[in-house]
């Protein structure tokens, strides 16, 4: 029988779940409980750090919020632990939303440092507040019970903890394999690409921040009722660091790596604590030395963590099947999906008048004016440094214009952001491809369909999005076939040749249902055959009524392809006309070949 990686994962999980039914010593159950608790936090961290690209050292503080909330409510106010769970989740979500909204916008390395700081600040707060018992903490927390059944026995708690972990896993896996999930995966690639697909990056960052905090809080609640007491120590920075360790050791981009990491680290630590004093004597704190050294060695050996290694070995015997598959026939209601009305052929769609962009004293684009009509392929050409890419960024909303007007279908867009502009019907590709390399072509292209769906993260996590998901995937598959990449549907995008990656980006842009397609140097770095394929595709799209603006500096490529050319030099338009006219235009020749002094 063939066992896919996916089945292997759930088999592994099932084995852990059945573990306490075996006659194992209580100590093992305790270890298992902790592994479960840690896995829940680490799972949130995988979502946040590995997939969303936001590193947090502060998760332990959210575990603390969950634990202290239920501890305080159940001891001081005598409320039910289940109410404590609910309140803890709300408190953590609010705290994470607040901290998240000020910190997640920060770039790269600021965020991890910021999480160290607020993690410490919450830790010291737990240890100082009078009503939380200062550094002694709270003790005498009641055990959990459900409909009168006592859940306090370790083996029962084990079941509850691993049930919660299984639930979180299910929700996270569902979420990742959906419209919002693709948006989350796009986050790690910076801001420009997701925003150009209409993804609200700041909102999604706060979302994963809150989700990770909720999981941490759940773990804290379980911890408080397992231990029956809480104190500040387990919620300090060292635990925050350890959670991150678990995620990185397991494989930070992999959901199942969270459990593997927690198992490895918890097992390793308890073994080292037992073993080393026997070997080296009890003087000194050797386990921490060995632990630190092992981490360094492990990362030298497997920088991506353990799970990818395990999965690779397994895949050698059981070649993995694609996880995301588009339906073979159009799903119900596919024909009714909203599509933009095509403007009448020849009508004005893009109107640029006197657009200017200044960076300090440098005028990158100087009072450019030109128009694009429906069904036209227009080339914007010019030598390197002429300001073509800046012009492109003005139209796609990556940069706001300093002055002048840009109108699309009659509406001004020169001050709008990329997200608003793609919504109005301008799709784009990138000069340097922006793809998520380990995801399949289908999943990458489906990112472009973000605006075509409405599924919320909650309904995605609960698997209530399958109908819309099928529509979106079918739509993406259609675009992939349209551009001729149908054979590579399930290939990881990173393993395609550059020319194919460029074409993939066009398919992704087509998913946004554009009226106007902007291609940024699509032929740069392509071989002759690839250029020909690209030119054929652009001709085919034109035949289907698409308007295209090509930014290029490759003259040969644009000559046979475009209806009209606009030539830029030093930020200004120096010529405009039919390709044949441009070829003989003296100003253009001077710009390209150098003028005669």
């Amino acid at each position, binding site marked *: 029988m063939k066992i896919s990686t996916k089945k292997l994962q759930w088999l592994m999980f099932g084995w852990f779940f059945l573990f306490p039914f075996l006659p194992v010593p209580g100590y093992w159950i305790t270890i298992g409980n902790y592994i479960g608790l840690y896995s829940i936090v680490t799972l949130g961290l995988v979502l946040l*750090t590995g997939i969303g690209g936001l590193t947090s050292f502060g998760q332990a503080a959210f575990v603390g919020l969950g634990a202290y909330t239920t501890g305080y409510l159940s001891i001081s106010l005598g409320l039910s632990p289940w109410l404590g769970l609910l309140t803890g989740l709300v408190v953590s979500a609010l705290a994470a939303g607040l*901290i998240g909204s000020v910190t997640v916008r920060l770039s790269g390395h600021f965020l991890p*440092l910021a999480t160290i700081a607020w993690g410490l600040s919450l830790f*010291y*707060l737990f240890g100082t507040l009078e009503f939380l018992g200062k550094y002694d903490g709270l003790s005498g927390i009641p055990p959990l019970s459900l409909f009168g059944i006592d859940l306090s026995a370790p083996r029962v708690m084990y079941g509850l903890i691993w049930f919660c972990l299984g639930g979180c896993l299910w929700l996270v896996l569902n979420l990742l394999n959906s419209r919002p999930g693709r948006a989350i995966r796009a986050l790690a690639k*910076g*801001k420009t690409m997701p925003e150009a697909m209409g993804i609200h990056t700041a909102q999604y960052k706060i979302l994963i921040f809150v989700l990770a905090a909720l999981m941490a809080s759940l773990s804290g609640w379980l911890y408080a009722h397992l231990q029956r007491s809480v104190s500040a120590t387990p919620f300090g920075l060292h635990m925050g660091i350890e959670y991150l360790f678990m995620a990185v050791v397991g494989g930070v981009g992999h959901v199942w790596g969270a459990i593997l990491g927690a198992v490895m680290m918890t097992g390793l630590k308890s073994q080292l604590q037992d073993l080393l004093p026997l070997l080296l004597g009890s003087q000194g704190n050797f386990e921490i030395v060995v*632990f630190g050294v092992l981490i360094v060695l492990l990362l*030298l050996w497997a920088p991506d963590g353990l799970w990818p290694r395990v999965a690779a070995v397994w895949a050698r015997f059981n070649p993995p099947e694609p996880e995301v598959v588009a339906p073979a026939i159009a799903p119900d209601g596919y024909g009714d999906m909203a599509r933009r009305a095509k403007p009448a052929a020849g009508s004005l769609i893009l109107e640029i008048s006197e657009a200017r962009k200044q960076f300090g004293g440098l005028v990158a684009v100087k009072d450019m004016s030109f128009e694009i009509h429906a069904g036209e392929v227009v080339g914007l050409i010019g030598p390197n440094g002429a300001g073509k890419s800046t012009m492109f960024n003005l139209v796609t909303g990556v940069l706001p214009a300093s002055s002048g007007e840009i109108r699309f279908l009659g509406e001004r867009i020169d001050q709008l952001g990329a997200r608003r502009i793609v919504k109005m019907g301008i799709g784009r590709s990138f000069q340097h491809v922006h793809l998520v390399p380990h995801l399949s072509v289908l999943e990458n292209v489906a990112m472009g369909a973000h605006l075509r769906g409405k599924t919320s993260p909650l309904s995605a996590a609960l698997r209530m999005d399958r109908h819309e998901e099928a529509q979106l995937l079918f739509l993406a598959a259609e675009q992939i076939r349209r551009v001729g990449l149908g054979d590579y549907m399930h290939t990881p995008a990173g393993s395609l040749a550059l020319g194919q990656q460029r074409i993939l980006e066009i398919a992704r842009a087509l998913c946004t249902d554009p009226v106007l397609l902007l291609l940024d140097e699509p032929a740069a770095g392509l071989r002759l055959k690839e250029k020909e394929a690209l030119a054929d595709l652009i001709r085919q799209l034109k035949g289907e009524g698409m308007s295209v603006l090509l930014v290029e500096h490759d003259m040969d490529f644009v000559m046979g392809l475009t209806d009209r050319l606009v030539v830029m030099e030093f930020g200004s338009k120096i010529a405009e006309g039919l390709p044949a006219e441009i070829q003989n235009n003296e100003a253009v020749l001077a710009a390209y070949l150098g003028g005669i002094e």
Partner: protein
Amino acid sequence: MDFGIFAVLAQDGITNGAVYALLAMALVLVFSVTRIIFLPQGEFIGFGALTVAALQSGQFPRLVWMLMAVGVLTFLVEIGSALRQRRYKPLPRRHLMWSGIENLAYPTLVWVLARGLEWQGMPMVVQILFTLGITVPLGIMLYRVAFQPMAEASVLVLLIVAVGVHFAMLGMGLFIFGPEGSTTQAFTDWSAEIGALLVSGQSVVVLGVSACLIALLYLFFDRSLYGKALRATAVNRKGAQLVGIGTTQAGRMAFGLAAALGTLAGTLIAPLNTVGYDTGFVVALKGFVAAIVGGLASYPLAAAGAVLVGLLESYSSFWASAYKEVIVFTLIIPVLAWRSLVSGHGDEE
């Protein structure tokens, strides 16, 4: 609060702030050159202070053992990497010989000096210099062993490795120095009364040393070509390599400087505070806060941030001493909020 208390608190705050500034400098330096968030910085504070204390009390500075052990390890790593590259290039004999001198002969020399000389009673400056002679090579060796093999890794992986090194050094610290802390002798017992304020010589020394070092670093990185080359490696390693900047040299240099700054920070606080093997971590974290306030890029701003942290700590310990740490570490949130508003755009890749 009258003016006297106000002034005393200000003096305390600025003195501590000056030490945080040194640490902030070191962190900014290491990060901007190597992209490593250098958590083990804190260990150099404790190790430096305790080594000076050992020298002063006539004990053998046991950090030398660690230097020798890590030296042997570094040499083995060098041999290992030379053997692995044997197929592509001949054995780099000269390089290995230098490595032997650096990692085996030098630590042995340090051991001989530590054993042979009567360190107790020597001028404190000499003791500090000898301590630097132990910690700086240690910092450079750490870079070679733990970070250089993965210099191209992501910031996150480097950070985790830094945490691993931090753990390892913390455990070693407990083994070498034991759990008890020590203090060192005062730099000077000079003091002067200015109005109601008693200015201690200690504060003057700390401020003077910190200000000099900050000015030197600033000049080095902003005015000298070599300093600019170091900064270039942070922006783009590959680009820097292509224009002939030795990124490995840059990394060694950054770690050596960071170790030196950490050690100096330790010796500056040791006369006033009891320093244990693990004291440095929280002190270094406050340096972190200062560095973040300064944006992890600019030396003068980081120094200003450090003084702000020091003042905040000193005044909050007067008004709400229990919440001292909470206040200092929470400072970061408004600062970051302000930064995220100011920076607005910006794409991280």
